[in-house]
Structure formats: C-alpha cells, structure tokens
C-alpha cells in the first residue's frame, strides 16, 4: 500500500526518492508515529516532502489514499465563478492553444468548452468515477493540473480531526509549478561570471608569500593581492506595465537573482520599447528620467546588456517617430535600438512569452531582427542560450 502511495506521489509531481521512502519506513519502524492517522500524515510529510510548495500535492495524494470510500466531492458548487474558469483555462489549455484561440478572437468559446468539460466531469462523478483520477482519464488527473478553487471537499461532519488537516489544503498557495526558480536562474547566470583581481590588495597571497619568503632566505615577506571578484558588468533593461503585467513575478525573480550574482548590475525600466528616456524608479518615472544618450555615453561597451520584455506592441511603436503609446517620441524606437546594438556588442533580449507564439506577433519579429536574432525565451534552456550569446561578441 505504501509503495503505491510512493509512486502516486511521484506521479503527482512530488519529487520523492527511495532514500526518503526508506527513511519513512525506518521512522515507522521506530514507532515515531503509532496508531494515529494524523501522526502518520505528519511523519510522512516530514520525511517525504522537502518543499512547502509540494505540500498541497502531497495533501491531495494523501487524501486520495487514506480517506477511503467516504472521500471527496460529496457536494460541488453548481455555478462556477468566472475567475475560476479563467484560472482553469490558463491551466488546462496549452500556450499554443491559447495563442491560437486568442488570435481567432474566440476566448469566450474556449471558456464555453471548458464549462462543458466541467459539467461533463460532474456527471461522470455521480456515475462513480473519480474526479481526480490516477489513471489519466480525467483532465484533472495527477499527471496534470491543480483544480484550484473547484475542490471544495466534503461538508459531511467528520468525527476524526485527522481528516481535516489534509482536507483543508492550507498549502495551496505555495504550490506553483515554476520552471524557473531563483536557484535555476542563478545557476544559469553563474556561467556569465568572469573573475578578475581588481582593487585594493587586501587578501594574503599565500603562494606568493611562500615564494617571496623562500627567495628572501627564510625571512618573512608578506605578499598581498586584491580579492577575486566577479568583473562582469550587466545592464538590465526591463519592460514594465501593460502586457508585461503577466510576467511581473518572473521579472522580479530574474532581477533578484541577477542582483545577488553581479556586483556591477545597473538596471533601467522602459515601456514597450526604448526611446529617448529611461527611468529607474517606477513611481517617479515622470519626474526622474535618464536620457538614453547619457546611458550610451556613460556605460562602456564592455557592459552586457539584457533586455527583458515581451516586445508585443503595434509595429508603429517601433518603426515610426511619434509611435509611442505614452508620449511624442521625435525619433523612432528602431533608431534607438540600432544605437544600442552598435554601442554594446554583447546584447540579448529575453522574452517571457513562449517561443512558439513569437511568429504570431509582427513586433516580436521586428525586434528579433533588430537585436540580431538574439532574442531568447525565459526558460532555463533559453537563458542558457542567452548567456552563451552574451559571452561572445556579436558578428555585427
């Protein structure tokens, strides 16, 4: 029974290993949890789950296995609120499907389909099938999605307090299937590091001291050298507002990871595309601006430039003077971008929208050409490619 539990946990996306499973058995053998479902639940969670983001998945699998026949969904709300549907749609359909649907302008239809699916699910449930199946027949199976919000749990009075703990699913908020954690981002950014010794000599150079002392006939001759520091300089330019609102979380993570990795990190914000001014503080963006010319003058070409933006806009915003949605820009964005690429040989554009969608948006294609095909998606693999591109000078 526990072995099946183990495999179901793995199928549900909780990364459990054999060692952890064995240590659970060991703990059971030591009678740490005894004769109490609640204690067993805590012990199993303690030994098997190592991240609070996985608690919710664990709770669900646990409920499925150990609550027996009386479990799950005795009551389901008849009317599903619209936000839930929206959220479900985002989980249920692939990025590609969504892009296509959006392009066709049939978002409502998509929601309608989803509503149908939910309805069908309800009927099947009364027929005796599981709502959350493990065999993969249900769209909400353990291989796939989190039916957030739909899961109401049973309202029947339960005698045992134990059931409540995992039924309440208090860790739901922690569950997010991010591809890119801060750790991953940092590991990728590490490849960009280039160490150099610069600045004041304040570290003892042991090898140098031994060498000098030996040459000095045994009299101590201390040698100092500067500390080894990461010499890479990074200029981060982030798109804010509008269509980027969906990606704020990702940008924050990228930013915080980059900030702790690089000593020389400068950042500026722009909206949709770069024009003659940028800013550092989003609240005071209209009061404190930095002229893009100053930026080009002030930062040496040895800075690596990383743009982060979805580049989704009207092509006019790039190609035409006065095309900006916010102000009258005397020079077109394209000219500013050309100045950037000319000044900074190492430059990439990170785009949080999935790569498959890029062809659907003309402005992304234009931007892609402007940065010399150095636009990469913000997946781990894309970040790796971007770092590789930053390491070599452009052919331009």
């Amino acid at each position, binding site marked *: 029974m526990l072995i099946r539990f183990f495999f179901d946990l793995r199928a549900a996306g909780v990364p459990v*290993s054999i060692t952890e499973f064995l240590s659970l058995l060991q703990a059971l053998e030591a009678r*740490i949890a005894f004769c109490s479902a*609640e204690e067993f639940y805590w*012990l199993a969670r*303690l030994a098997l789950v190592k991240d609070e983001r996985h608690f919710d998945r664990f709770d669900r699998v646990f409920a499925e296995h150990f609550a027996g026949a009386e479990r799950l969904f005795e009551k389901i709300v008849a009317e599903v609120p619209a936000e839930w549907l929206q959220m479900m749609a985002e989980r249920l359909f692939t990025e590609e499907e969504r892009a296509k649907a959006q392009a066709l302008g049939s978002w409502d239809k998509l929601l309608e389909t989803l509503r149908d699916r939910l309805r069908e699910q309800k009927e099947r449930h009364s027929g005796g099938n599981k709502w959350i199946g493990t065999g993969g027949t249900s769209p909400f199976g353990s291989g796939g999605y989190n039916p957030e919000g739909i899961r109401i749990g049973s309202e029947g009075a339960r005698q045992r307090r134990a059931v409540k703990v995992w039924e309440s699913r208090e*860790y739901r908020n922690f569950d997010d299937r991010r591809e890119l954690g801060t*750790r991953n981002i940092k590991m990728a950014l590490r490849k960009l590091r280039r160490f150099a010794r610069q600045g004041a000599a304040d570290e003892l150079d*042991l090898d140098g001291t031994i060498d000098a002392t030996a040459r000095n006939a045994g009299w101590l001759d201390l040698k100092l050298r500067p500390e080894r520091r990461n010499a890479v300089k990074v200029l981060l330019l982030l798109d804010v507002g509008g269509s980027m609102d969906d990606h704020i979380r990702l940008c924050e993570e990228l930013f915080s990871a980059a900030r702790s990795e690089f000593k020389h990190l400068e950042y500026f914000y722009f909206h949709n595309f770069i024009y003659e001014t940028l800013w550092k503080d989003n609240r005071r963006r209209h009061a404190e601006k930095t002229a893009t010319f100053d930026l080009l003058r002030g930062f040496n070409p040895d800075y690596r430039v990383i743009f982060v933006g979805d580049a989704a806009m009207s092509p006019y915003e790039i190609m035409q003077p006065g095309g900006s949605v916010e102000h009258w820009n005397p020079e077109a964005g394209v000219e500013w971008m050309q100045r950037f690429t000319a000044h900074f040989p190492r430059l990439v554009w990170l785009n949080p929208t999935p790569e498959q969608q890029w062809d659907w948006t003309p402005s992304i294609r234009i931007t892609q050409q402007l940065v010399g095909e150095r636009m990469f998606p913000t997946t781990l693999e894309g970040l790796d490619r971007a770092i590789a591109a930053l390491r070599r000078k452009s052919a331009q």
Partner: protein
Amino acid sequence: MSTTRFESTDRYIATADLSMAINAAITLGRPLLIKGEPGTGKTQLALEVASALDRPIFEWHVKSTSKAQQGLYEYDAVSRLRDSQLGDPKVADIRNYIVRGKLWESFDSEVQPVLLIDEIDKADIEFPNDLLRELDRMEFYVYETRELVKARHRPIIIITSNNEKELPDAFLRRCFFHYIRFPDADTMAEIVAVHYPNLKRELLSEALAALYRVRETPGLKKKPSTSELLDWIKLLLAEDIPPESLRSDDPKKAIPPLYGALLKNEQDVHLFEQLIFLNRRAR
C-alpha cells in the same frame, strides 16, 4: 529508541506536528530543516530544544561569506608562519594552528548536543552541497593532521532557512523538512499567554483580531508574524493603550495604534492606509 521527547515548554508553544518533527529527527538522527515566515520562531526553536532537553547548544550563524569549511575547521597558516619567524616551539605541532569550527565542536561534545545552523540560505549557493558527507556520516577528514573526526554522539541538527535561495535536492534528501505555518488564532493566544501571562483577555482578543485583519490585507510585502505581534503587545502594554481603541468599527481608529511594530516597510503602511481609506469611502 531515545527516551528524550520534546514537548511545548513554558516559554515556547510547539504545535503537535512540530514536536513530532523534532522527535522524529532526534530518534532517527537526521538533520531537521525548518522553514517558515520570518518571525515564527525558527531560531528560537533550537534554543528551546536545547534547554528543554538540557543539552549544550552550538550555534552556527551563516552569513553570505560563510564557507562550509569554516564550520569544520580552519588552518591558521599566517600565525604559524609568524611563530616560525619568532622561533616559538609550538610551531612544530600543526595541531596548534587548526582552529575548530562549530561543527567540530559539536562533534566533540561529551553529551549529545544541539547544533543550530541558522539561515543556511544566506550562504553561497554551493554551501549546502559542501556539507553533504558531514551531515550524512557525521564525520570529516582533517587533511593537515591526517585525522578523521567522528561525532561522539550524532548531534541534533536544526537548520533554518528563509527561502532566499533554493536548496539543492541532494541536501534536502538527507533532511527532514518542516514548515512552520503561521499559527491559527488559538495557538496564537497560547503563544501570547506564554509570553504575557497577565495580559487582559480583552486586549488580547482585540490585538489578535487586529493582527489577522492586517495580515489579510492583500499585497503586503512583509506580513506581520508572531514576533511582531509580541513586540506590538509589549508596546501596547507599555503605552497602556485601552483595548477599545483597537476595535475596527470606529472609522477614525481604523489604523491600529503603534502600527510601526506590525508593518515593517513604508509601502505596506501606505497600502494599508489606502485600503482603510477606500473602505471608509465605501461606507
């Protein structure tokens, strides 16, 4: 099976699942990784475990510059070099220049000690990986003296993390993991009772209500937690604020007095004030 069991003490309220986590870690000799919102008593836990079980405690506070080696030992080459210049006789024995770290000290303890590795996520990203063998086998090798240091008693290791960095999988596999959830109202009342036994019942319930109201404000950067609540109650007592003034239905007093103890950053204060203002207008 060990006879030692950890329960709530008269200074620290441990929920049943937390006590079980600690007892499991003690029995199986595994390190226990504790996560949770800042201010929910992660560091305090180790101190309380040590005092409740009457064990010595070794605290290793990790900083961003900490290296795993520093917890084991450091070889002080510079002072040895200096001593050799001065002709000090102790220079002949390299052991005089091996400076022990916290981990070694805890390995060498006469009774089973408690070792706290505090805020492991502050260190370099490779830090936990460098401690794998030490935590697993409870032994390490001193290259300078060619000696193998083994723990006399497996220490009770408690590791805290604030989630600033994600920890590597190989490291996590070796630990038990417990997440200290923000306590519910009943547990919170118990905790406050432990710290302020003479607190008036009304003030407590008003303060708790105010705290949970503040915590429910959407979009707060740092939600107030247990330690903030305790500080705040201390302030309320010191200023002798009557419980009535904490009540929310008085629109003028909607912002709790001395809120600086609860909200720790100006954006949060600003956000909170704005929400209160909107609420008032909606009325």
